[in-house]
Every structure is written in C-alpha cells, then in structure tokens.
C-alpha cells in the first residue's frame, strides 16, 4: 500500500466526520478493499473514532476488509437466477477456480462472490464480471468467459 495514494482522497473529502462513507468508497475503489492503515489514516483525518470506521466497514457488504483479486466475479443467486440454474454455475466456478464464495484465488486474479438479487431477473442467470453483466449464463459459457477475463488479466499484469 502506498500512503501517498491516499492523500488526494483525504484532501478532497476528508475533513468532516459525515464524509466517512464517501472516503471509504474511494478507498475501496482505489485498493479494491479497505486496508487497515488506510482506515486508520481516514479515522485520524476525519475525526471519526476508529471503532466507528471498523463498524461501517463490517456493516456494508460492498466493503471488504480482506484483499480482493484483480477481477470480481459476482454470481446472482436471487430467486429468478436460482431457479434458472445459478447454483450450478456457482458450483462450476467454485470447482474451476478452487475457491468458495468470498474467497480469492492464490494468484490474486479472481474473487468470487454471490449476491441476492441484481434486479435484472429477466437476464437470469446473471454473472457480473468487474461491473459488466453477462446474461443467460450456463456452464458451457463459463470457459469462454474465464478465458476473456484471463486474457485481459495478462494485459494488466504481463508477467503473471
């Protein structure tokens, strides 16, 4: 973690205690998760007790205190996606990536998560990869999907 990266966030927003949510969101965007030193810096800069920052980070599912992979795979497991076969997709992904939901692969490329509904039930089953929705997924499409993400990852991290 580079502490200098935090300065623009804290300089732009970090003065009033009520801005803590925006600051946490920016930190999450910057690092992909909420590193402890960053939260300590935010707590000191905004004058919010550290325990409050910790509580917020724990309360919202959008925040993660654990490092996440470069690519976030979110499998929708809402009612509509569930009946259309989301559990099977999830099982396939878990087997292929060898991780459980909420975990990150050893090479830090993928984090797998589930969500309870995305409000896009007509597109179900839906998998969201880095914010892009892939609709009407079935296990046969997973290999292609993972391969596109992997090739993008190779551009991102050439020597990985």
């Amino acid at each position, binding site marked *: 973690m580079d502490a200098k990266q935090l300065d623009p966030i804290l300089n732009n927003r970090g003065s009033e205690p009520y801005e803590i949510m925006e600051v946490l969101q920016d930190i999450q965007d910057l690092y992909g998760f909420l590193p*402890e030193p960053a939260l300590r810096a935010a707590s000191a800069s905004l004058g919010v*007790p*550290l*325990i*409050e*920052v*910790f*509580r917020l980070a*724990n*309360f919202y599912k959008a925040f993660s205190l654990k490092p996440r992979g470069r690519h976030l795979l979110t499998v929708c497991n809402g009612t509509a996606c569930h009946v259309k076969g989301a559990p099977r997709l999830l099982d396939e992904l878990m087997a292929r990536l060898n991780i459980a939901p909420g975990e990150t692969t050893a090479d830090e490329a993928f984090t797998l998560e589930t969500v309870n509904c995305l409000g896009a039930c007509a597109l179900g089953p839906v998998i969201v990869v880095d914010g892009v929705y892939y609709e009407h997924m079935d296990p046969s499409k997973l290999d292609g999907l993972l391969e596109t993400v992997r090739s993008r990852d190779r551009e991102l991290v050439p020597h990985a």
Partner: protein
Amino acid sequence: MPRMVTITVDGARILTPEGSNVLEAALEAGICIPNLCHVPGVTPLGACRVCVVEIIENGRRRLTASCTLEARDGMVIEAHSENVMRARRNIVELLLAEAPNSRAIQDLAARVGVTECRYPMRNNTCVLCGRCVRVCDEIWQSKSLGLVGRGPSRRVALPFDVRPDLCKRCNNCIQVCPMTITPCPGPLTEPAICARCESQTSMVENIPDTCVMCELGRGFQCARWQLKGLDARA
C-alpha cells in the same frame, strides 16, 4: 428544573421529569421492572427487551421496551399484565438459552418465573446487551469497543481486534458485563437452569410487581441497586 409529568404505571401515579425513561421512573417509585441491559446514566439501548411493558394509547395496547420509552404526561403503562409477563418470560427464556452460564441471567430467570427452557442451550459468552460498549463510549469517552457486524455475526469487538491506544484499561467493560458473575454453584458444566433460589421465587410469585430490593436484583445488576448508589455486586 425540568418539567414534571405524571405517568401511571400499574395503576400507580408517578411524578417524573419529562423525558426521563419509564424504566427508571418506575424503579425509583419502587415498581419492579426486571432489566438487564440498562445502566443508569448511560443512553438506553433497548437491546435485551427484558424491561418490556405495555403502553395503552387510545384504548390500544402495545408492547415496548420501557428503557427507551420517554415519559410523557398522562402515559398509561402496564408493567405486569398477563401479556407482558408472558412476553418477558419468553425473552428471558431466550436469553437463558443463549448464555446460561451467568448469575445475572439465572437470577433474571428466577425473578420472572422461568422454570423450563424450551430452546436449545447455546452456552454463549455474550448476549449482546451492549453494556460494555456504552459504558466505554459514554462514561469513559474511550470508544474502544463496538458492536460489529450484522445479524448472527454481530459481536462486541475492538477495532481490528487490537486494543486501541484510547483504551485506558479501566476494566469497566468487564465490571458491567452480566456474564462476569458466575452462577452461585459455580460455573455450570452442563448448561441448565440452576433454580436454586426457591426462597426468592416464592416471594416473586406473591409480589411480582413490587421492588423489594431482592437479592436477585444484585445478581442481575438491577438498575435499582445502582440508582440507590449501592454496589450491585457486593
């Protein structure tokens, strides 16, 4: 000087400062409302729900926690109706199932007349009453502890599970914790209702609504003892 208001608790008219909470008003007046999470002088949280009472408004009755209920003029409260007693017994039964290894909770069970526990015993070490958190936050201005997480994963925690520099090691969090008083026979090996307070329970059945500064109140750190300036743990 705050404006005084009159509230009616179990038919007794009580004069109390406006905005004070109904639980403390009733305890001051000698009416027994069992309570667990309440600490005098600290913001009520309404976490344990043991102090449940019935408030009668426009002929309607509804159950609510008395510690978070602000006294308003002309308020009518029933603290020992059939409905309240049933709800209170059930709440204490759930607390007992969660953490039987505490004299505070065993005494509460004896006070409200819980004789059996229909729920599976979990034998936890915390009932999330939030006493420690609020005392740390408000009396000591330390803000070292917090209730973290949601639903089943809610717990009392330190930030990043490390003791912060703000913690003065005053140990007040431990002193107010209902789990730190072991049941009279010692720590229970098998989670159960200890039910060794027969002498107290008969009195409970005869006068359920009057505070007699019972020994049970010491066990559950009843706010009455603290309001009188007595050490509830002596």
